[in-house]
């Protein structure tokens, strides 16, 4: 990205306005100032700098992938990440799940009146760093300010476009008996990190979110010619929801083994305490990969070369079935259904 003079601190004109005002979304001088001093320099690139109502760019040959996601996380900053980096990682990861190379993002900001300008600046700086790290450009955006009390400080929406440069039909319907099921790392960290800060729960150690881009390990799998059938990021609903959706789409039985699923000890302890299942908890930098059985070992080895997927493991396999089914083998050797969670995760009484 070409942003020669980018300041790590909030730009001076903004300091006259320590908080976001309704006028910052009103289309006049203040809004112009916000765009010119905050968003413009932070996200600067030739397409954005052209300042059109819509971004203009040429498209490389190949199929395109497009995705959108909104981010309403509270608090805005949490151990291991913040709403800004998460909004970049989340959309980049959604593109990566079709094996696409992410190219361009749009970003919509819905800001609650009164948000400290410093907070906005920190989020924007974090987005800038995450976008650079993922190799994507933010080429268009939108800002709205809503009355105080009508939003949780800041909501973000990012839409992403990527190009698919491989020939594999990566989709849930491509999953077939004999495939191996691989998770890219330990599960449950993002959801438990958020729950701990939101509810003021104190555990012995701080659980950090796993928010990260998984684009590089996915690219490595494709580059190595692994027969990837399906990829799915493990956000809300966790592994259990993803496996059930895929089993339903492919009409297969997915059998996993509890002992093989990596869960960090502090996350396990927090889940036990609250009566939650780590397989139902949200992640922001984890995915499940279905690959042809014979490629499983090599796929795990490739994934483990990347920091974000260093804990990758084969957790189960796919079998033929008369109907979709997901089962999990318990540590004492009995099998049961692994169901989707029902609604929000609610801690139990005792």
């Amino acid at each position, binding site marked *: 990205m070409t942003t020669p003079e980018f300041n790590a601190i909030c730009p001076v004109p903004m300091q006259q306005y320590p908080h976001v005002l309704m006028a910052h979304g009103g289309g006049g001088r203040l809004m112009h100032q916000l765009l010119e001093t905050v968003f413009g320099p932070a996200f600067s690139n030739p397409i954005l700098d052209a300042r059109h109502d819509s971004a203009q760019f040429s498209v490389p040959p190949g199929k395109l992938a497009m995705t959108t996601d909104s981010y309403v996380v509270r608090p805005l900053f949490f151990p291991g990440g913040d709403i800004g980096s998460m909004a970049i990682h989340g959309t980049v990861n959604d593109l990566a799940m079709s094996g696409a190379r992410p190219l361009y993002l749009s970003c919509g900001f819905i800001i609650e009146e009164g948000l400290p300008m410093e907070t906005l600046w920190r989020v924007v700086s974090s987005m800038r760093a995450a976008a650079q790290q993922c190799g994507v450009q933010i080429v268009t955006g939108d800002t709205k300010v809503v009355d105080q009390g009508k939003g949780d400080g800041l909501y973000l929406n990012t839409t992403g476009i990527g190009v698919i440069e491989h020939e594999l039909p990566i989709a849930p319907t491509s999953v077939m008996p004999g495939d191996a099921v691989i998770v890219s790392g330990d599960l449950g960290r993002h959801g438990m990190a958020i729950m701990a800060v939101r*509810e003021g*729960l104190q555990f012995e150690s701080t659980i950090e979110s796993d928010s990260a881009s998984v684009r590089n390990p996915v690219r490595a799998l494709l580059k190595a010619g692994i027969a990837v059938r399906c990829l799915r990021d493990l956000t809300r609903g966790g592994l259990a929801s993803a496996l059930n959706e895929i089993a339903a789409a492919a009409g297969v039985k997915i059998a996993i083994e509890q002992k093989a699923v990596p869960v960090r*000890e502090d996350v*396990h*302890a927090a889940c*036990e305490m609250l*009566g939650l299942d780590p397989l139902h908890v949200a992640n922001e930098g984890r995915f499940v990969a279905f690959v042809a059985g014979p490629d499983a070992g090599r796929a795990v080895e490739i994934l483990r070369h990347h920091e974000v997927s260093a804990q990758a493991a084969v957790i189960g396999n796919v079998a033929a079935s008369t*109907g979709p*089914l997901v089962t999990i083998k*318990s*540590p*004492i*050797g*009995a*099998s*049961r*259904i692994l*169901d989707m969670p*029902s*609604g929000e995760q*609610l*801690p*139990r*009484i*005792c």
Partner: protein
Amino acid sequence: MKYLDEYRDGNLAQQLAREIHRVTTKPWTIMEVCGGQTHAIVKFGIDELLPKQITLIHGPGCPVCVTPLEVIDKALELAARPGVIFTSFGDMLRVPGSATDLLSVKARGGDVRMVYSPLDAVQLAEQNPAREVVFFGVGFETTAPATALAVFQAAQKGLGNFSMLISHVLVPPAIEALMSAPGCRVQAFLAAGHVCAVMGYEEYPPLAAKYHVPIVVTGFEPLDILQGILMTVQQLESGRAEVENQYARAVTRRGNQPAQELIRKVFQVVPRKWRGVGEIPQSGLGLTAAYAAFDAERKFGVANRPVAEPADCVAGLVLQGLKKPHECPAFAGKCTPEHPLGATMVSSEGACAAYYRYRRQAAPERAFSK
């Protein structure tokens, strides 16, 4: 995880299962009292390791499930009042009353908040002196000390804006009611370890003697439950009916004395209605006269409106161990966790929810044979 994985060891589980197979010569019906044990049994597939002669039936030990519909309706009424902050443990929020649930009241503007401890509700009352904070105090002897402590603290702080809607229940009277009911099939009990951690188990020998049933205080991990079952079967096979303690790492004979003292200070034993079972004499806890000012029902004058359970729901029979969840015609059809007819389908400890979550599609295959 330390202190947990040791109790989930697959090899030891198989060893215990083999021992249970070895000592079992006749059919036996054992009830695990606590919903937490029911979930562990179904989640880990413990019953699949047992000989076919052993039938486990799931007891009434789910606090969410036995809270009567009338009380939930009162909670809904209080939660919808302007000026009230209604606080509750998480898993009460989805339980259906006769018309709606607490999450829906929240969606329509009621100030309903999930708390992790009743003391959080006391803190909310301190922070919001202009609002009335009501805590939904439910549960067995396990949660009673925390509820009692909250009332005690609120009284000490002189908080006039804090009160409780209470539906606390007690385990021994429920065992007594089950055993004296006609058609009772239970031949032995796994008593709830956490309840006994608070109360000890001195209340149980008279019950074991009166009904000639073995009662084994049992924990919640797979090895605990398997060992509890083994101890129970050994008693049954030898014709003994004693109280034994499998969960000695957490439970002592006399229990947690300061906690019991606190319960006695704040609560008195009262008759209580159990959802799906009916009224059981001396089976609940209510505030004593000294703490009556903290009684939300009295404070807000909420009316007692008797309501009928949905006709299709067999939760009452499930709670008494007379039916298994999947024997209900509404199970997984008309009744699901998203559209529950009864509380046993909602709560994380409810037997119907456990069967729905872990067993819906197929009858389990036996993973172990003699």
